[in-house]
């Protein structure tokens, strides 16, 4: 009886885990997009050649900002979100 309940719970958790995976992937995918952009257009990383650029172009480098947004989302928003999601899924099962 207990084993049957455990199996049902595990099945339910697997059924819901796509949300967990999808939310966990958003930040890393964003950061990866920024990394690919930096590799494709290295001249956008003005820090590689700081003498040629003015303050604003050194302060605002789009590929680095995209990576930063991905990291910020992943480390600031996602952890609490996943724990709330797991709690809600457990309650639902």
């Amino acid at each position: 009886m207990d084993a049957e309940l455990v199996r049902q719970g595990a099945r339910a958790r697997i059924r819901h885990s796509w949300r967990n995976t999808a939310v966990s992937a958003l930040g890393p995918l964003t950061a990866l997009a920024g990394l690919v952009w930096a590799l494709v257009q290295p001249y956008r990383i003005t820090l590689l050649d700081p003498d040629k650029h003015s303050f604003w172009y050194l302060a605002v480098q789009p590929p680095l900002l995209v990576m930063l947004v991905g990291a910020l989302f992943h480390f600031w928003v996602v952890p609490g979100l996943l724990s709330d999601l797991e709690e809600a899924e457990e309650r639902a099962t």
Partner: protein
Amino acid sequence: MEPPAEVVHWMFGVGFLFLGLCLLAEAIIGREVWRRRAWRAYIWPGIAFLMGVLMWPVMVFYTSSAIHMLAHSAWAQALMLVGGAQLGLVRGKLRSSMWELTLPLALLVSGFAFLIHEQNPWFFSRAAFLHHAIGWTLLVAAIFPLGQALQPRRFAWSAGFAMTWIVVAVMLFCDRDLAPIFGHLSKFAGGPR
């Protein structure tokens, strides 16, 4: 020491990208779970309102033409209206679901402002192309919040609304003050930088 216009567009791109990620996460996990922590419920209306406030300095300092100023002030007001209405709804101060209609309204105002204030054709320069593209994207995307207001639980509307901001962020990141688009650059636009 004003930042160049393209740099301002990239900074707004950062805000829209973060906003899009938050909205996409909310669409995936559902509004109930997203709003379990108060700060998360306030994050997207707060960002929208803040971006509306930040649009005012853009309106004041980037005075290349009167129509630019009008467009920037229209976006500032639209963003603040949406942010304020959503903050009121989250807080419970506003109860009518009709306030949700401020979202499609803001998208329509913003889309028209983009299209009206860009007076050059699509292939004049990259900036002109992106103004047209963003304008039409916002006009078409107004369907998503409208659908959300009518069917709040439908994934397609909320995901579409979230993706709108991610697409707008990508287009803002593509902006340059003066650059060709698909090999086209009008001789009246000046040389590429």
